């Protein structure tokens, strides 16, 4: 028995929306970074599900690239957060107000 592709789409939409809402409402920059990761991983579910559905490996190849980029993004992001923490001793985005948000 195969699981219809539609189910995967619902799962990925739920994960994506969780991430999206997390970015918009959470104030801790690390949690925001984790929420972005949720958004990126939701796309990976889509790619793999569609890849299976079409019997076409292009989607799975895309996942490898997306994973690598996500890792690079986290590396750069954490470096920025560390530099910011050293300067301000805070990782709460509400306290970053030197520039009017």
């Amino acid at each position, binding site marked *: 028995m195969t699981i219809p592709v539609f189910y995967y789409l619902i799962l990925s939409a739920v994960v*994506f929306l969780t991430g999206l809402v997390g970015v918009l409402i959470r104030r801790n920059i690390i949690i925001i970074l984790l929420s972005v990761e949720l958004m990126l991983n939701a796309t990976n579910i889509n790619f793999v599900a*569609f890849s299976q559905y079409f019997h076409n490996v292009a989607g799975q190849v895309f996942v490898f690239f997306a994973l690598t980029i996500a890792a690079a993004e986290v590396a750069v992001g954490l470096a920025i957060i560390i530099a*910011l923490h050293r300067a301000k001793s805070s990782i709460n985005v509400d306290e970053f107000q030197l520039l009017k948000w």
Partner: protein
Amino acid sequence: MTSYGADLLVILPELIVVGAACLLLVLEPLTPPSRKELLAWLSLGALALCIGLTGGQISVLNLRVSAFSDLVVVDGYARFWKLLLYGVTGLTILMSLPYLKAERLQLGEYYGFILLALSGMMVMVSGADLLTIYLGTELMSLSLYVMAGLKRSSPRSLEASAKYFVLGAFSSGLLLYGISLLYGVAGGTKLGAVAAAIGSRGFDDPLLLIATILLAAGFGFKLAVVPFHMWTPDVYQGAPTSVTAFMAVASKAASFAAFLRVFVEGLGGLKADWSNLFLLLCLVTLILGNLVAIVQTNIKRMLAYSSIAHAGYALIGLVAAGRGMGESGGASGLASVMLYLALYAFMTLGAFAVIGMFRKGGLEGEDIEDFAGLAKRQPLAAFLMLVFMVSLAGIPPTAGFIGKFYVFMAAVEAGLAWLAVVALIFAAISAYYYMRVVMVMYMREPDPSAGEVPQLVASPALTVVLACAVAGVILFGLFPNPLVSLALQSVLPLK
């Protein structure tokens, strides 16, 4: 594997830029702090090589070469943008030489990051597959996040970097989700496959509708179009000025290039639908960008809102192309976008070059009030700023006027005369905040209690940048034909 070698030959300019960037990062720790400028000259050398390679193909401008089974394509459109990006990058590097010295930021990796960002942009403009376009976008963005925060001693710079990173990562999440849904609709990520699959479908397919909106939102962040513009003023203000110039010009141009290619080559079948969506974005961008710019007192922030407004003007060309009426079938609309961004590059780079080296003590004079009485102290500097402001406002005989003229003509040709009128009204409003800078320079005396008055610190590299920028603004304002015909020749075919 001869074909593999041929593929590598197609992406030779990208390989040179990436190679030079890696070489710079290796040489950086080996170079004594006083000799970091050598690294800048090395990167300029790599750029010169690329200009030679791509410029040498200008006689076969529209020869379409694809490589790596259609992942990358080099056509007239890609060559046009690449030449523009080389020029902009070269001027940015020259501008950075005196700026970094004045800010005591002599970091060799700065030039490495500029080249990495450039290689990302080059991949974006030549990507023929959503995968390569995404990879290029990320390479560009990751380098720019770091560059925005390079001034580590300044909390403002770090804050700008963090904001840029959070919103940039968020937008690439949206973009990637859009791409994944498009893959689900089309069964492939090549732009050609996408175009073939959606040929018959319209927006009644919900998956396609959501995918298009997410792609538009993802690119909207990179283009700084309202309502995805919130990061722009903060990041432009906080980042080092040479980086701001690079972001405002190069990253906007490359994002527009990739955006146009995705929507024209990939989603061209939906043009009737997306042109309405972009019409809406274009209107709110023009309104908000121009009106909020009026109340700004920091000149970098004002130019950030002005860059938002300019993205709105450029979008008019895309809306006109989507309507695809008139004899040229929308080609003139696309060409007007390309022309607009090329001309916008000169004036914006010039304005930021002046701002970066306009210094008071060890600091930048970035308040508009700092420019008071500049015409008496440094008439030439004030005149250059006048030229850039007049051009940004779109007053003849400058390049800014030519850019706006062709965009508005494309709108009229597409039966959107009312849009051209609205944009013209906002261009008139924008003249108010650009001319305010001129008024402050020419008609106001500096506040005597302020102490040290800011001065434009001249240097040979800055002179070259300003000369190129002002020559571009005035020459293309008087003789736009070569650039116009180049844009018309290299435009994408709209189906």
